[in-house]
Each structure stands twice: as structure tokens, then as C-alpha cells.
């Protein structure tokens, strides 16, 4: 009856699938696993306490928040939007690509610009639309839909795969503690270093893919009239 120990894993899967409260799922899975694993309530509380304290490093983000909000208050987002607006010969694909590079570099230093709500919608989208309109075209609805999808995709890829370069990010800390529980001690800087090729590849492949895709879409929707304009 060893299999019964997997019940915690199934509670997690089921809980997330049913979109129950994440903290509730974790708590229930912990309690049930501790009980079927013969740890008892004392064992549960002690393991929880020990592990949480051992993983306090993950709360470093709380200290970082001391400057996150104040940086925004002092014009960080305005500076970022000014930086990206310096792109020459803009097309939506190019703007999204430049944003990816900027987002990736700053993600490696754990600096964000407000994500989809705070940056893509108010800054990147108008710039992309402006780039099409500046060629004397009205933006095609299907093209706009794709631009929205690509900009969000760029945001996600750049943040996920470049944030792991920040030494002290939650991902690295969790991997470090997971490996430590198996007896492998690794330094945070080593964890960041191994991700460098992955980050570069992630940015490059996404930027190239979106650039080519957008080029094709531009041709498809405005090709004929663009040629006439010349």
C-alpha cells in the first residue's frame, strides 16, 4: 500500500484542475500526506516549521519591494518607454523584438515594467499600431489580434527565461532548496550561469519567429497597397 502516499500529489493535481485556492490545496495535501506517511500532527507542524524557516531566503522579494514601488514612482516606466521609442524604422515585429531584448536584460536584474497591464497595453500596443499607421495603412483587425498575442508571448518568454539569471530569484532558490533536500549543495550563481545559453536562445528564437511572422502578416494584409505607395 505504498501507493497511498501519492494521494498528496493527486490532491495537488485535482485541486489545481478544479481551480481551488492554491494555499488551501497545499495545506490539505500536506496534512493528508503527513497522516498517511505516519508523521502525525507534531511531525507535520515540525516539518512545516523547519522547512519554512530553511526557505526564508525566498522571502527576499519582500525586501526588494522596498524599492520596486518607489522606482515606478520616480519614472522607471517612463524611462523604459522613452528607451524603446528610439527604435528606427519601426514595424510591429521590430518593436516587439526590441521590447523582448529590453525586458530580458532588465529581468536578469529583477526589474519589471508593469507587465501586460502596465506596459504592453498602454505603451507597446499604441507603438505597434502607430508603426503600421505611419505607413499610411489602417491596422487590420486580425493583424492587431496577432500583435497582441505576440506581445504577450514576448513578455512571458523574456520574463520566464531571463528572470532565472537574477541571483536570488524565487526559481533558483526553490531549485537550490529542492536539491539540498536530496543532498546536493549548489551555489545560486552556478544556477544562474547554466541558464545563460537558455536565456539567449529563448530570446533569439522568439524574436526571430515573431519578426518573420509579422513580416508575413504585413505583406498579407497591406502588401498590395504598400507596393502601390512606393
Amino acid at each position, binding site marked *: 500500500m505504498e501507493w497511498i502516499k501519492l494521494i498528496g*500529489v493527486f490532491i495537488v493535481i485535482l485541486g489545481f484542475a478544479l481551480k481551488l485556492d492554491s494555499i488551501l490545496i497545499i495545506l490539505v495535501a500536506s496534512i493528508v500526506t503527513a497522516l498517511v506517511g505516519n508523521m502525525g500532527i507534531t511531525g507535520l507542524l515540525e516539518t512545516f516549521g523547519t522547512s519554512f524557516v530553511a526557505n526564508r531566503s525566498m522571502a527576499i522579494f519582500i525586501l526588494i519591494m522596498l524599492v520596486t514601488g518607489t522606482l515606478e514612482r520616480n519614472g522607471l516606466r517612463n524611462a523604459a518607454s522613452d528607451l524603446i521609442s528610439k527604435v528606427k524604422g519601426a514595424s510591429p515585429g521590430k518593436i516587439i523584438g526590441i521590447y523582448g531584448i529590453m525586458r530580458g536584460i532588465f529581468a536578469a536584474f529583477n526589474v519589471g515594467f508593469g507587465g501586460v497591464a502596465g506596459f504592453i497595453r498602454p505603451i507597446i500596443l499604441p507603438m505597434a499600431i502607430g508603426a503600421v499607421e505611419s505607413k499610411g495603412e489602417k491596422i487590420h483587425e486580425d493583424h492587431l489580434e496577432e500583435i497582441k498575442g505576440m506581445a504577450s508571448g514576448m513578455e512571458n518568454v523574456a520574463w520566464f527565461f531571463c528572470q532565472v539569471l537574477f*541571483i536570488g530569484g524565487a526559481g533558483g532558490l526553490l531549485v537550490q532548496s529542492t536539491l539540498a533536500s536530496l543532498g546536493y549543495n549548489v551555489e545560486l550563481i552556478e544556477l544562474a550561469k547554466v541558464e545563460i545559453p537558455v536565456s539567449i536562445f529563448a530570446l533569439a528564437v522568439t524574436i526571430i519567429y515573431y519578426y518573420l511572422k509579422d513580416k508575413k502578416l504585413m505583406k498579407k494584409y497591406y502588401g498590395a497597397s504598400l507596393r502601390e505607395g512606393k
Partner: protein
Amino acid sequence: MSFFTDPEVLLGTKLLEIVYILIGLVSFNTGIKNALDEKNPSRLGTAIFWCSLGIVLAFGRWIPPIINGILIIVMTIPAILNKVKSGEQDEPTEKEMAQAYNEIGMKIFIPALAMGVSAIIFAIFTDLGALVGVSFGVLIAMVILRIYSERNSLKVFLDDSERFLSLVGPLSMLPMLLASLGAIFTEAGVGEVIAQIVGNIIPEGNVNIGIVVYALGMMLFTMIMGNAFAAITVMTVGIGGPFVLKYGANPALVGMLALTCGYCGTLLTPMAANFNIVPVAILDMEDEMGVIKNQVIPSLFLIVFQIAYMIMFK
């Protein structure tokens, strides 16, 4: 106090403990501020959450594990009951931000980059550790911001951190809680059971096949759970450890890349609503899968790249 005067304890460990006390105080400040905020719809629950978190973070080292355990359970109750809220928020206006940008300009990137730079410098050149470096960087950034403008007083920093912490809320604790769940899984022997099951499917001793199963397992399990952080502990204890690391593969490389293989799954699943579904709503998109569809190709390229990278450099 004896801890801080003990010559046997490394300076880096002592400094890190001071960092934890500071983190605890910031968390405590968030609790107290919300408790006093009449505009907060749930003052008590919010205060219980942030204050008990603050106690565990600041003094956890000196509190017996079982008391820490109880405090954590206490902390999760208002979170589960949805009683952790944010109160009145003093958000900066567009005008305020534009005006500050006019004064400070591109120099704002200097304090923004301070934390990352400081973390790298401390990790490479000192024995104090990267996290002490991050914390030092935060301090530097605060000093620089203060030099830029008199308006950036300590109160502004504290209020802004409270604003952001309240905004993120209890879900910010998810990685720590998942790590604790992982510890319970390990303690109860869940990893061994998974290892037994996987052992029936893949041949023991073939590290390359182990890597492929570990990587694809992370991707698929993350798609199901919508969260790579939830997948990493179970998969590493169950598959990564016994089928890959045990045979001498580089733990930093394989362990860390397993997480980013999980991120390939995050890109492909509507379960990761924050990243893939919420943007659809924010951007008024027609197709609910519009973001995911644009992430399929990069994600597939990335998983293949990462598996090859792990196999070549294990």
C-alpha cells in the same frame, strides 16, 4: 544576542540573519499599516497574515520548529478564507511619474540595476553570499533614490512596499509553501514511490533517457498543474534524483534546467491563467487561446534545445 557575538558563526550567516529580521519588519509594517487602515475591508485577517509571517521570517531561527509550524498554519487561515486584502493605496499619478522622469531621466536605471549588480559582485568576490548582496543593493538603491529626490523619504519606501506587497498578497508565499510541501513529500517517502513506478518504465542507469523523461515530465506536469514551482519538487525527488543525479550528472545544470523545462509547459497551458488568460482579457482579444498559440513554436524549440543541452553537458 549570543548568536551575533559567537565567533564560530560566519559573518555571512550573521548578516543574512539581519536581512531576515529586516524582511520580517517590512512584512510586519504591512500588517500594522493595514490593521490601522479603516479603508481595508478585512483589517484583522490582513494583519494576522502579515504579522505572523513577519514573526516567522524575523525570528524563526530562535523559535522552536513546532511553534513556527503553528504560526504558519495560523497565517494560512485568513489567506484561505480570502480575508487578506489591501486597503487604501497611495498610487503615484501619471503626472507625478512624468514629473519625476523629467527631473531624474535615464539615471533612474542606475538604482534599478543596483540589486542585480550587487548580487553578482557579492557572489563572485565575497564569501557573504548573493542574498546579502541583493540586500546591500536594495540599500544602495534607496540611498541613490534619496539623493535624486528629497521626496523619497523612508516613509515613501515603506508605504510603497506595503502597496506592492498588499497588491501581490498571500499568493506571494506560494514558492515557500510549495517548498514546505516538497519537504513533507520527501519526509513521507513520496519520492521513493514515484521512483519505483518510473523505474518500471525506464531502464535504470541510462542517464540520457532519465534526462528526457525528467524534462518532458516537468513540461507535462507543469501543464497539468499550471505551475512549474509545484512540479519541480515532486519531479526532482521522484525522477531527477534517482534516475539522473544519482549517476553523477551535474546537479546545478540538470536541476535548474528542469525548472525552465517546466516553464515550457507554463507557456502552453490555460491553467497558467495569470500569464496566458488574464492578458487576453486585459488586451480585449477575441481568441481565448490567442496568447498560447503564439507561444507554441518558441516553447517547442526551447524544450528540444534544453534536452540537448542537458545531455551534452551533464
